[in-house]
């Protein structure tokens, strides 16, 4: 199909371009369902909220519940732990600085996704590390009493899920907003 240089755009060029475009679009459209089927299914999405009764949790205790098949830590912090978290707000070793006030709705109750932000292990609630929070045994990350990364390879703080208090002693994880979103709205 050699074209002499003098030839301009002709019908055949149009056919090539159109057929290539339609083929590429068709391939993309056909590939998408095959790619998207890998994403979480409706059944997995349906498990996206968990209700927790807080009344049995004692001060100083950490309880692990599951939300979306992942561990969530609920910690009823003591006065000392809350004070430590506030001290941490201005610490120089924060990798992912965030004040404690943006990580809780009520200082007494700390709710965190219990997954180390390094490679996804569950940090230990028994061995609390150098900052009295959590210690991840896999690769040695230390979190403080606000769940912030202070030492070790993890790049981010333990995530705070969106949740809401439906009564004084009951929360629903996966509903409502995160504390950070709420505090932004208040300041805005």
């Amino acid at each position, binding site marked *: 199909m050699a074209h002499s240089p003098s030839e301009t755009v002709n019908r055949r060029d149009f056919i090539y371009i159109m057929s290539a475009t339609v083929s590429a679009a068709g391939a993309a459209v056909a590939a998408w369902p095959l*790619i998207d089927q*890998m*994403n*979480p*299914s409706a059944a*997995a999405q349906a498990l996206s909220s968990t209700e927790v009764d807080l009344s049995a949790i004692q001060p100083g205790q950490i309880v*692990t519940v*599951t939300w*979306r*098949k*992942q*561990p969530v830590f609920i910690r009823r912090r003591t006065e000392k732990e809350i004070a430590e978290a506030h001290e941490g707000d201005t610490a120089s070793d924060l990798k992912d600085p965030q004040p404690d006030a943006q990580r809780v709705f009520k200082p007494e109750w700390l709710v965190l996704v*219990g997954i180390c*932000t*390094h*490679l*996804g*292990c*569950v940090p*230990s609630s028994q061995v609390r590390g150098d900052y009295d929070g959590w210690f*991840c*045994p*896999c*690769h*040695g990350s230390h979190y403080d009493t606000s769940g912030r990364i202070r030492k*070790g*390879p*993890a*790049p*981010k703080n333990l995530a705070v899920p969106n949740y809401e208090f439906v009564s004084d002693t009951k929360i629903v994880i996966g509903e409502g907003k995160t504390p950070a979103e709420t505090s932004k709205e208040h300041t805005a």
Partner: protein
Amino acid sequence: MSGGHSTYTPTNGFTKWLDSRLPLIRVMNDNVTNFPTPKNLNYWYTFGAILTFCLAVQLVTGIVLAMHYVASADKAFASIEYIMRDVNYGWLIRYVHMNGASMFFLAVYVHMFRGLYYGSYKAPREILWILGVIIYFLMMATAFLGYTLPWGQMSFWGATVITNFFSAFDQVIPGLGSGVLEWLRGDFAVDDAAVKRFFALHYLLPFVIAGVVFLHIWALHVPGNNNPTGIDVKGPQDTVPFHPYYTVKDGFATAIFMMLFAVFVFYAPNYLGHPDNYVEANPLVTPAHIVPEWYFLPFYAILRAVPDKLTGVLLMFGAIGVLFFVPWLDWSKVRSASYRPVFRQFFVLFVIACLALGWAGAQPAEGAALLIAQVGTFYYFIFFIFIMPVVGLWETPRKLPESIAKAVLAKNGHAAVQPAQ
């Protein structure tokens, strides 16, 4: 396939009829039976055949295990116990498959170090080497996927940690890593969706490996084998037919290898595994010390050698990625390290660095182990990106033999006499 002319002549009516329709016997004759092979290949060159044997073992035992295994987060662990206790010879087939993975990697590491030592990646064998690296990468993927299937604690947490590598890309574009992570897992955590897709892919990939092995052998048969002298075959006096010379040599080496394999299967079937994998997966409790299978330990050490997550992940993938460029990183004209006194010493150090990384990968990442991992990681990369190109520029190689035939005869002390053929 060999590119040369065919040495096959059909002798009877049937083979003549077949040869003009599907020249199967001709292809076998030219590529196996009468394939001209350098006459000086040593035992390090038997690992290609040993690897073919390993792939066959994994395919046969794997297909059998798939007839009994249940890919489900609820039932996988119990189905492994069912295979071990109730299925006739299930224990044997599973132990062969489990240890077969280790034997496969043992053989591939010997095969790769041999290729590096004798310069088998240099022109005209670059594609051959790259296909080998692709096979190695596919083997790693297959082994990882297979290790998750028993749904023990190490399976689960190995899958969690390794899929989490991709979350490092959140450091590049926020949300990208987490999106990829959910896509890979099909859920917010490793669970039923993951075990099902991992099983499907674990079943698929060995056949992809078999396909790439075909290309690998094809690419081998165009230039023919490299050999311990690294010099080219100059004529028929340098070669012997593959059969019976190398079928026997490969067969003998494979038999010795099978004995080692049998020692593991029958006397230490769990020696290379981890006891935590006989505890069912628990998404709420991470084992105190997560280690991968031994054949991934050097890469695990590289991952943990640097404190930054994204850098660690990139270095780990880079350690495999750099292998693709090896044919263009070595600027020496001489192939075989036997004739390269300086490179040879750096090569020995490289083997030591890989072993040291393997040791460090099994230890908690602190103190001396962390230091050794860092030094090992440094040397691993420096070897490829600096030593390999630069040494060839100033090193004086030893004098190469005139031909393979002369080298063989000199070695055996009859330089003048041709042995009777």
